[in-house]
């Protein structure tokens, strides 16, 4: 099947509130997409992530879920968490909340051990996960001694050891310094490109995340208000992202301002080399044709 995630008419309210935290969400996600989710704090992003990996409805039982979420053919209401977590790996903002063993290697082995996999298979999976996030040199280290960026890579490796097809990351770089954030986002991009893992990431650092995104979702008040290619954001008929509290990277702000002054460009760049190339080849010529 084409769509690895299918969401129909999804709504969820926590037990403590009658107001739904998310509502009216319909979404199809294709295998191998790299989806960035943006929006104000409290807009429902984290709730949405919990629906993808089955924490909702299985863990948040006091709440009311309506509609359906299907991940790789499994309806999350009908399958237990341990089945869903082998399809959808989840990484949180604070890696420490996810790490618990005395060495990196043990931490990564924890998930496969719990699935009761044979010893040899566990060994293979741990090695592969260490390689994928480039932390083989840290295997004997204690997770709590590592830097935030390294810890987050260990958390990603622990999830990868379950060989999920979908990786959901809820603000994975929020507590990291810029170097750590770049490392982690590079690793994630690599997973999407090389392993064809479908990536769904909540990320405030759009200047980094949009470089790899195939699709951007903006959430507001619990529902989706934008679902398209990032390039579409600056088109005239689209509500500016700022309205929903999403700050555009300064590169995009620059291009928007130039377009407001009558310049036009063949495409909107989300990375620096492309931006420079477009400026050098198109900025002058726009004027010469108009004159």
């Amino acid at each position, binding site marked *: 099947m084409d769509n690895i995630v299918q969401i129909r008419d999804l709504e969820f309210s926590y037990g403590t509130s009658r107001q739904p935290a998310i509502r009216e969400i319909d979404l199809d996600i294709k295998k191998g997409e790299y989806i960035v989710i943006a929006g*104000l*704090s409290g807009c429902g992003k984290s709730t949405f992530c919990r629906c993808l990996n089955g924490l909702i409805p299985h863990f948040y039982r006091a709440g009311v879920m309506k509609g359906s979420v299907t991940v790789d053919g499994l309806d999350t209401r009908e399958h237990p968490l341990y089945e869903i977590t082998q399809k959808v790996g989840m990484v949180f903002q604070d890696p420490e909340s996810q790490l618990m063993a005395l060495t990196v290697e043990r931490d990564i082995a924890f998930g496969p051990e719990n699935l009761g996999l044979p010893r040899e298979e566990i060994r293979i999976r741990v090695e592969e996960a260490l390689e994928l996030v480039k932390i083989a040199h840290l295997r004997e280290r204690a997770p709590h001694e590592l830097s935030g960026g390294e810890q987050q890579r260990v958390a990603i490796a622990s999830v990868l050891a379950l060989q999920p097809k979908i990786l959901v990351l809820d603000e994975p770089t929020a507590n990291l310094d*810029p170097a750590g954030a*770049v490392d982690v986002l590079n690793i994630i991009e690599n997973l999407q490109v090389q392993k064809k893992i479908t990536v769904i990431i909540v990320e405030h650092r759009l200047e980094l995340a949009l470089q790899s995104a195939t699709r951007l979702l903006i959430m507001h008040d619990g529902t989706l208000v934008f679902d398209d290619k990032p390039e579409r954001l600056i088109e005239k008929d689209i509500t500016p992202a700022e309205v929903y509290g999403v700050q555009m990277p*300064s590169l995009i702000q*620059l291009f928007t301002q*130039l377009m407001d002054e009558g310049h036009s460009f063949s495409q909107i760049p989300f990375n620096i080399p492309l*931006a420079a190339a477009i400026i*050098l080849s198109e900025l002058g010529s726009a004027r010469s044709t108009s004159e």
Partner: protein
Amino acid sequence: MSITVKNLDYTYPSGVAALNNVSLKINKGEHIAIMGANGAGKTTLIKHFNGLLKPTKGHVLVNDIDTITSSVAEMAKIVGFVFQNPDHQLFLTTVEEEIKFGPTNFNFPEEQIQRDMEKVVTFLNLKNLLKRSPFSLSEGERKRVALASVLVMNPEILILDEPTMGQDAIQKRNIAKMIEELNQQGRTIALVTHDIEFVAEYQPRVVAMTEGRVIADGMAKDVLTNLEVLTKTKLRPPQITALAWEIANQKQSFPKDVITISEMKTKLLALER
């Protein structure tokens, strides 16, 4: 109110030398950003500004008061300190109690406390949360409560550790606006941040640190466009600066020290002619 740091060394009890011969003067009314990689000594340095840490060697003077001889309580009236992790400073059962705690402890008059509180909660968009428990709030909201509980004391010097971390675009802009406003009222602001786009936009004086030393101190425009400093501090240039460098690679006349969008636009339009 100025802060003078003279030949400051600090070694943690564990033996880790975190600061090595740091000298720095922050003048009254200045707005400075301290930047650097994790472990560079930024937080250790600012903890000296309110006497939370005392120098192993050297001195820190807040105005003319040597922090070695003053108590943290005494300094708290002059220097407000907002921690990176709000949970390090929140402990009461409601947001309102939390904000009133400091001024009540110093026996400020009740009406003044009420007035100051209303001002900061409006400022920080916390009005609807006054009766809530700080621990039921989101991280971004808790951060604003921590900030409110410090601002309500009207400190002349405000120290902020990573104020924009974990904040969305709107809250970030609010925080920036607030910092600008407090600065315009004559308050001295020193903040630690990794957020280079934020610094590029608001352009405070920038102090760059690595391995317990100050390696650059100057205008944002100069420090953030200095490749050597950026490399040593593991910072990436602002997006606009990176673009300027990329263009200059192919068009040598293009200036490399551009950090703001508006300046970039001007330079690009000039290029076009």
